């Protein structure tokens, strides 16, 4: 698996899109730092961008990369290696290259600004960690969707719907449910429901660290009240990792049974 990972990673790192993706983060971060001059505020602004953009880009790249390498995969499948090694290698290569673009795009401006001498370094690390986790989660989900769907249009459509669901629709539905059943005690339901959405989990993780959980409204407030910062962070981080493991396992399950 490591060999496939290595070559997928190098192939992708040299792609124009990786460069554009890193350049976007770089320019955006520089712009924010220049405008606000307050590291804490910049971290919060970036959080909002990362929570939407990382999943979107990982989803699009995941589906695109799978369909683009479809013919090359046929050559790889004829080599004496396991199927899971091919798809895991490609998946991790993609997620790692997206993560590296993110780290470079965000890291360089912050490093230039002097983040290493600042107390904000931990908050910044959590932000980066979240971006990486989201890249892994959503490229995994996208890879799984693409593997299940031979038709490109259908695969793209489903992947975008998956992103839209987690980024927008899920919260809307949750909010509607909370409004509708507001006479009942809903704290546990709200916490439970957040666990099923990696974007919500990331938001919780960042905000718990920033200690401004009241800002994220109901779910965040009850999350901190019920669990405290330590347990809350541990729980959200564990579930986020589970969000990588489950699609990763599903990729293998589908790949082992698929006709190419």
């Amino acid at each position, binding site marked *: 698996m490591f*060999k*496939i990972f290595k*070559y*997928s990673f*190098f*192939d*992708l790192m*040299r*792609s124009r899109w990786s460069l554009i993706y890193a350049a976007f983060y770089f320019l955006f971060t520089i712009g924010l730092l220049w405008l606000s001059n307050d590291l804490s505020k910049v971290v919060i602004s970036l959080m909002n961008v990362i929570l939407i953009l990382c999943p979107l880009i990982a989803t699009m790249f995941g589906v695109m990369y799978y369909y*683009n*390498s479809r*013919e*090359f995969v*046929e*050559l*790889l*499948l*004829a*080599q*004496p*290696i*396991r*199927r899971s090694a091919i798809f895991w290698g490609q998946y991790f290569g993609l997620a790692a290259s997206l993560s590296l673009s993110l780290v470079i795009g965000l890291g360089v401006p912050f490093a230039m600004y002097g983040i290493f001498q600042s107390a904000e370094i931990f908050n910044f690390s959590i932000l980066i960690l979240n971006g990486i986790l989201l890249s892994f989660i959503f490229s995994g989900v996208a890879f799984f969707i693409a593997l299940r769907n031979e038709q490109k249009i259908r695969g793209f459509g489903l992947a975008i719907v998956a992103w839209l669901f987690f980024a927008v629709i899920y919260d809307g539905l949750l909010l509607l449910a909370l409004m509708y059943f507001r006479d009942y005690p809903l704290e546990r339901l709200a916490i439970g429901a957040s666990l099923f959405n990696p974007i919500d989990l990331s938001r919780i993780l960042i905000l718990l660290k920033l200690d401004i959980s009241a800002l994220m409204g109901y779910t965040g407030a009850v999350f901190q009240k019920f669990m405290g910062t330590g347990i809350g962070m541990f729980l959200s981080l564990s579930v986020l990792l589970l969000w990588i493991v489950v699609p990763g396992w599903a990729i293998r399950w589908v790949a082992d*049974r698929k*006709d*190419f």
Partner: protein
Amino acid sequence: MIQIQNLHKSFGPLQVLKGVNLDFPATASGASGITAILGPNGSGKTTLIKCILGMVIPSEGEIFVKDQRVKGNWSYRHNIGYLPQIARFPENLSVQELLDFIQDLRGTGGQPEPLIQRFGLEPFLTKRLGHLSGGTRQKVNLVLAFMYDCPLLILDEPTAGLDPVALIQLKALLKEEKAKGKHILITTHIMDFVEDMADEIVFLLEGNIHFRGRPDFLKKQYQSRKLENAIACLLQKMPAPSGGGVAILED
């Protein structure tokens, strides 16, 4: 070398292979050499090849390559060199990097240099694969398929996009590989190529083997000077004019 026993494959309601039995013995007794797998579109040629390579999982039946069961196995593919139909590679890698990559995967023993020379690929080694023409990519594809000394070669449309010089080189290469006692399975729609190269034809029709035998035998049966015409007759299930009936081996 290859034993295929009662191979069935369905894709949903579509039955592509319906109980194929095929045996390519390991000894060089007539059946070794170049076998062309022919048949009209949708007859199951590619599915059959992909079943041997383990890319398509059979619904029923067994395949053995060098006495190793194909199902759930991957190490048997050390014995196979494969040329896929469409030559598309990671666009941002160079030709040399791709060759290194495949050698990294398959282990030592690969010898791409003589093939690079043969197909005149030296000027392209440092070029990115995304910048190469279709024909050049097909040459890279050929290098990848032939660079290991595998006893079994499976070539899916090997002539696609090749210029006449490369085609002559390919034919010479195939003859050399055959002389080494290798089994070569080829699918193609170019009947001249089959006529030139194939020692044996396996003709698939509606998911079963309709004919297996030597090309000149088929031509004689249909009193045709060209294989193309004989195949067309076979396809239309015309009776053979030579009287004795067509040598159809319904396995």
